[in-house]
């Protein structure tokens, strides 16, 4: 695409840092349309992240494990605190909650197929459980959200775990949102809503408020399911240290902390970019709370929000997580933002690599849509295979890094294996700036 810079002397033009082209476009869009920008995807701004950490491989002071020969285990058990039937995962990567409604039925099926093939779990979303996803998911986590769309005790009993959703990283403090063009007949029936409305679901649960009520609510869920199912509590990362402590106190088996890079199907851009804290400090704060309560590894910690590679997986585990969850990356693995759809992305005003209009329901990849024809383009078997492949790669990469650090289980990775590339990351992850013993903000005690 030709830009003004091509036809002018590039030395004579200076773009404002404060009012760059994206800001100018947004101001003019807001003035034109009179409504805030709603979109999918996660935070797009630069944030301190796992890329700002590096592993210290073994050498003389530590010895590594042989790649391909010496075993590096990856299994995780979730829900060992109270549940009679904890979730046994073969890999430390799970699929995060994404609703039928936000995603097409074949896309939900593909997530189940892929996760099941590699021995991990997938999760329902703000729209209830579909038969397709139950059938194709060996391990399925059933979310209890403020909206309670489709909430059904039969589904509760046929789930493998229950996740009480307090918030998500993309919008801590915000409720669900599904715009009218994605409320098809089936979605409307599942949610007990009129077809085609702009659905804005509640941000608070209808029958509990605060940690004391949450404890009683968890007690009810345990009674209904006869204490069999692990109960997760999911929070968007904000006051993570306190939230994790309160969730432990309320009786959670597993805590899910979703950093601000976590994806969404539809949220105001201002919310996505300006609320919550990044995943990097959130892991550390969550682990702090668990350690202080002597609950680390007893109440398991799942971290999500911007997990893309096996390096991200390994670094989250090294900081103390028991497992991670992927959402946005899973959609991309299934074909979202693929160059093969570029021509069609351009027809709807986007481009491969930039597409974030998951709220609009016009996804040419057939993933974030309820349009029958678009959804029919998506092959759930192929999608499932891609998810399984991708999950295997994440696991292999994490094992590679763990072996390099001499670990026979990915959970043996520890903060001591890490250094930071930036002062910010050093302070947030509380590991030393590379080449120094400096951990900003920690008063040098360690």
């Amino acid at each position: 695409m030709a830009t003004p810079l091509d036809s002018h002397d590039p030395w004579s033009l200076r773009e404002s840092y404060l009012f760059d082209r994206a800001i100018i476009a947004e101001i003019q869009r807001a003035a034109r349309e009179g409504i805030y920008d709603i979109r999918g995807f996660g935070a797009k701004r630069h944030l301190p992240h796992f890329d700002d950490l590096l592993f210290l491989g073994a050498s003389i002071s530590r010895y590594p494990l042989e790649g391909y020969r010496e075993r590096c285990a990856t299994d995780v058990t979730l829900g060992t605190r109270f549940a009679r039937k904890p979730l046994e995962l073969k890999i430390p990567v799970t699929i995060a909650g994404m609703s039928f409604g936000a995603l097409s039925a074949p896309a939900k099926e593909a997530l189940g197929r892929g996760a099941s093939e590699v021995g991990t779990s997938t999760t329902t979303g703000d729209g209830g459980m579909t038969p397709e996803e139950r059938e194709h998911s060996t391990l399925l986590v059933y979310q209890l959200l403020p909206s309670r769309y489709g909430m059904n005790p039969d589904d509760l009993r046929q789930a493998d775990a229950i996740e009480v959703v307090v918030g998500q990283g993309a919008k801590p403090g915000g409720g669900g949102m599904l715009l009218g063009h994605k409320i098809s007949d089936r979605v409307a029936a599942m949610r007990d809503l009129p077809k085609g409305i702009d659905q804005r679901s509640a941000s608070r649960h209808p029958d509990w408020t605060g940690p004391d009520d949450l404890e009683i609510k968890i007690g009810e869920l345990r009674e209904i399911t006869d204490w069999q199912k692990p109960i997760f509590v999911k929070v968007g990362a904000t006051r993570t240290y306190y939230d994790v402590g309160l969730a432990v106190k309320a009786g959670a088996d597993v805590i899910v902390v979703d950093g601000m890079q976590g994806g969404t199907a539809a949220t105001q851009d201002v919310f996505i970019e300006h609320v919550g804290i990044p995943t990097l400090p959130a892991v550390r704060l969550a682990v702090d709370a668990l350690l202080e309560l002597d609950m680390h590894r007893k109440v398991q910690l799942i971290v999500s929000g911007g997990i893309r590679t096996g390096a991200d997986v390994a670094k989250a585990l090294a900081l103390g997580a028991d497992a991670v969850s992927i959402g946005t990356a899973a959609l991309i693995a299934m074909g979202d933002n693929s160059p093969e759809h570029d021509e069609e992305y351009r027809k709807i005003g986007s481009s491969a690599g930039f597409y974030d209009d998951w709220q609009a329901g016009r996804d040419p990849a057939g993933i974030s849509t309820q349009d029958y024809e678009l959804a029919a383009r998506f092959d759930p078997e192929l999608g499932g295979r891609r998810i399984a492949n991708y999950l295997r790669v994440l696991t292999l990469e994490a094992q590679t890094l763990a072996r390099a650090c001499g670990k026979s289980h990915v959970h043996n990775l520890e903060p001591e294996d890490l250094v930071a590339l930036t002062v910010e990351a050093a302070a947030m992850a509380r590991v030393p700036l590379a080449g120094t013993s400096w951990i900003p903000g920690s008063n040098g005690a360690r």
Partner: protein
Amino acid sequence: MTATEAVGAAVEVVDLAVTPLRELNQRLHDLADQTAGPERWRVLNPNGAHAVACGLDAKLEVEIEGHVGYYCAGMNKLAAVRVHGNAGTGLAENLMSGTVTVDGNASQSAGATGRGGLLVVHGDAAARCGISMKGIDIVVRGSVGHMSAFMAQRGRLVVCGDAGDALGDSIYEARLYVRGDVAGLGADCVEKELRDEHAAELRELLLQAGLGDVDPREFRRYGSARQLYTFKVDNAAAY
């Protein structure tokens, strides 16, 4: 009385002063898979316990003799649960079918998110009665507190007394009937004409609730103006 009725009339008594709640709920849940077993239960000394008789999934009659805490009869299917006392927060939350009856008062969020069945409160219900209701029918002999039927999606709420502030805020397709005063209507909730078909369904609901003495013509009907169903910036002041 026939022999069958005599057997069916046998009442299983569980005293929560000596039997753990877990054991009571487990025994009640075990009946979901069985064709035989006690159909009538009496629960003594609930003493405000939470989650009493929640998650039932069989045609049972459960009489609870005393006050219960949070989430009594939560997510109930098929069973008829009666509380001879008051009930705490989240009574009959997410009710699927069957009936739940409380002789006394109910605390906040009674019948929250219920998807079917009938909830009857003979006293008053506190704030957020019928919040996010999705098909449940709720009949309250007394009054309800503020924000009742907030985001109510489907089902019917009948209030024989008064309703607190912001009734039916952000309501979808639920139908609300109030006999007394309404302190205030929430966003997008308006009064609607009470036509013959509404009086008929109201009469039926009152009869089901055992309140046949109440005249349906004394009620006013409220529902959604449907102005907030699609987001319009001109409505921003309502959000």
